[in-house]
């Protein structure tokens, strides 16, 4: 079992050409074993790139392939339109890896989805994507670092820390049900809580590792959810203990203002919710190994 994606997920790539990021990573996803059933690129409609048929629109691609999910890898200015096009075509999951989308566009797109397309889940933007090892990989996660089979679910805000989480568990021989990178932008389509809820409901997931970072209050809200609604054990790591206040650390999300959103505040909230908190990714991996040993 898994959350959000599995071996039956049929994926199309928006922004598909031989030289684009969508092309590079979409074909890697296909090589990994993901059912990549089509690409969308109005300029190349009718062509086939490495065995993947290209369509003029998401609607055409869905009609021809029965796709259920989309991988959006188009530049920032075109991303909101691409996401909404996928939602209009009825896709259940839209994974957007694009970095640098204006916050106003992101907030607007999120609320249009919530209002008009409640069935569509947006993951990202500015996220690494999602992988159910051995079944489906959508996005830019290097598939070879993921060990499948469970029992751990992973959710992480930052892209590269998502890989680090997969890597730490693999080093210890611990398998993963699904690994979700929700992205570091101010308005992510999918939140920590959405993922925790899905992991709690997934019978194959027995424990969850959650990597957060400074800024905002998403980790504090997740801690509240864990305390109230989860009985599966959780281990965590929060990046940015040494970050100075008031400075933007790369992600639009990663900024500490006043005493809000600090690593310490987040770690305290998680500890109070019964979460095992590591001070670096390796330590969090070790804490998860202890949890798995006792399952």
């Amino acid at each position: 079992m898994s959350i959000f994606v599995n071996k039956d997920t049929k994926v199309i790539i928006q922004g598909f050409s031989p030289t684009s990021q969508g092309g590079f990573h979409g074909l890697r996803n296909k090589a990994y074993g993901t059912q990549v059933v089509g690409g969308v690129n109005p300029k190349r409609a009718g062509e086939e790139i490495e065995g993947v048929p290209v369509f003029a629109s998401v609607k055409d691609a869905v009609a021809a392939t029965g796709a259920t999910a989309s991988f959006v890898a188009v530049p920032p200015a075109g991303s909101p339109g691409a996401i909404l096009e996928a939602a209009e075509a009825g896709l259940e999951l839209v994974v957007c890896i694009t970095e640098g989308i204006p916050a106003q566009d992101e907030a607007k797109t999120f609320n249009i989805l919530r209002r008009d397309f409640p069935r569509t889940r947006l993951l990202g933007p500015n996220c690494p994507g999602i992988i159910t090892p051995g079944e489906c990989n959508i996005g830019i996660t290097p598939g070879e670092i993921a060990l499948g089979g469970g029992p751990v679910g992973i959710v992480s805000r930052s892209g590269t820390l998502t890989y680090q989480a997969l890597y730490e568990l693999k080093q210890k021989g611990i398998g993963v049900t699904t690994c979700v990178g929700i992205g570091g932008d101010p308005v992510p389509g999918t939140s920590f809580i959405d993922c925790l809820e899905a992991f709690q409901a997934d019978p194959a997931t027995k424990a969850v590792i959650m990597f957060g970072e400074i800024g905002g209050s998403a980790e504090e809200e997740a801690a509240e959810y864990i305390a109230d609604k989860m009985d599966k054990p959780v281990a965590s790591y929060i990046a940015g203990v040494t970050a100075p206040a008031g400075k933007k650390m790369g992600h639009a999300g990663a900024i500490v203002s006043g005493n809000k959103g600090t690593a310490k505040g987040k770690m305290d909230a998680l500890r109070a919710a019964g979460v095992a908190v590591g001070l670096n990714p390796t330590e969090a991996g070790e804490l998860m190994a202890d949890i798995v040993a006792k399952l």
Partner: protein
Amino acid sequence: MDLFEYQGKQFFASFGIPVSPGEAVDTVEDAVAAADRLGYPVVVKAQVQVGGRGKAGGVKLASNTQEALEHATNILGLDIKGHVVKRLWIEKASDIAEEYYASFTLDRSAKKHLGMLSAQGGVEIETVAESDPDAIAKIWVDPAEGLSPEQARAWVEAAKLNPQATEGAIDILTKLYTAYVDGDADLCEINPLILTPDGRVHALDAKVTLDDNADFRHPERDDWRGLTVMDARDALAHEKGLQYVGLDGTVGIIANGAGLAMSTCDVVNQVGGSPANFLDIGGGASAEVMANALDVINSDEKVKAIFINIFGGITRGEEVANGIVQALGRVDIKAPIVIRLDGTNAEEGRAILEPHLSDRLRSKPTMLEAARDAVALAGGK
């Protein structure tokens, strides 16, 4: 990008928000000429991006040419908490009956825009929020719907401003929302928003933070750059398009992804070292970006060792490796480099680095081992 007050007022004015007439000047001579043109009394205001400029003597009222000359002379070059005043905003003084507070920003929990309005303006809104939270009228605007006239009216009425200010405030707040959305701002704050004795409402200050991600559709922003105070390292990094934050330690850090870069700083700290910087080369970083990153780190005299921590996703290992090799051939890197490379095409990357490995360029298999090695090379704290 944070705007200076005078830039924020230009920004507001471009959306039709009433602001006091004024001029930005860089010399005492121009300050006096501007004051004479505007007519007295004027306010001479230091343009710095730091709070507490009034208390530091950076804001003065001048009733005549002599006073304008005196204040401009004193304020230009004044050091306000490390920010040296290079520009003044000379503004026609306003009569104030009442002072309010108004702002829009994103509420990330609600995923909606949050508007705040208070009859208690002119002081820090955080202070009001603590001492009298009910004095702040809040409104959540759905970004997909926008701010309706009915919402704006109900919001202003909830804030219990002087009834004389109601119509003017509705007008300004509606325009402020448009400025915030169409101007692609992360924050638009007016404090104080004033009511004059003759019943007009206007913005007496402007605090605006623009969303850099929207630069591509705002060519007008080019005029606002250049006056921001940056240290040399920050300026070089900014010029090269890198996400860089200068810190005070001895281990230079280059990582891909903000989370991993922060985590790298954390780990260096935990094993007894201190990071010299945060540097995120981002996703899809090319060889050139890596070479630029090394250039920036190389310009920091305090750096005794460099830790390159790459976990490739969109960033490809062989490009990172090529970048390091290229940079080594191009500039004389002063500090030894420890690299940890994993993820997409990491093996290809390690193969490229292999023939170049030495005491000065070392490869370690894990983040912790690489951090320990880099900290040892830097001689601890």
